[in-house]
């Protein structure tokens, strides 16, 4: 049992010293109600998806990420196509790190949108910070990635 406690303490120390205050996860799914318009451009969409798979492994230009608009509202002055719905979660690594912030969620949404070739993330909404299944402090956010026409 002493070995068990030693391992636990070692793991805790390693996590504490890891230096990563947060870690995050994200993903995209098709927006409800947007399938009909997307099906008309299926071959192009497939090509686009394949291209995206290969480019996801490449590093995204930080300038492209920074240029992506993130808003809690809709964009009404520019027509757009819906790319998909993005959901991201930012978690703090250990119980001693600071709670994740909305700015970190926005940044993760921008990264996911950039991977998908979107120009903006609209209708952004956030959860409430608290303990999640995988973290001592977790905050999630959702938004709709759009591409201007």
């Amino acid at each position: 049992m002493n070995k068990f406690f030693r391992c636990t303490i070692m793991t805790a120390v390693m996590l504490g010293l890891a230096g990563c205050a947060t870690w995050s996860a994200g993903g995209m799914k098709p927006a409800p109600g947007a399938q009909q318009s997307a099906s008309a451009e299926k071959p192009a969409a497939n090509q686009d998806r394949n291209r995206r798979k290969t480019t996801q492994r490449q590093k995204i230009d930080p300038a492209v990420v920074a240029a992506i608009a993130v808003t809690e509202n809709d964009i009404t002055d520019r027509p757009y196509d819906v790319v998909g719905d993005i959901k991201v979660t930012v978690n703090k690594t250990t119980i001693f790190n600071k709670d994740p912030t909305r700015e970190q969620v926005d940044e993760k949404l921008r990264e996911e949108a950039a991977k998908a070739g979107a120009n903006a993330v609209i209708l952004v909404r956030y959860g409430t910070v608290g303990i999640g299944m995988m973290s001592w402090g977790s905050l999630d956010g959702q938004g709709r990635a759009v591409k201007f026409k």
Partner: protein
Amino acid sequence: MAKAVPSSLNRLGHLLLAIGLAGCARSAPDLPPTFTSAPPPQMEDGARVQRCTVLKTEIGNLREEIRVAEDVIAGRRHEDQVQGYFAAVLFPPAMLLIDQQKAQKNALDNRQMQIDAKLAEQHNLRCS
């Protein structure tokens, strides 16, 4: 010694459960269906602009209400966790009495749904 270890693990388990119960994360509300690009309703320009202004104000008010409610939840979170620690150590069944602020969290989701409905109307009216 053999008995003490399971007991301390048991206590640790209670403590983790208390922390979890007292400060659960709330997921972001679901996104609304994609706004349709239907032709704008027959409405005079003046009336449309007036309605757009009203919608903007209402959305602003709802966002302010959400901000206040979130501050309350954040403020209560640490208090709930302290209650959780004490309950875990002194009397574990008391953990079930800890207010998880579910009502406030549901109210936040309802306000977001109201905002979504107003944003859809804004989109339909082509409000700028």
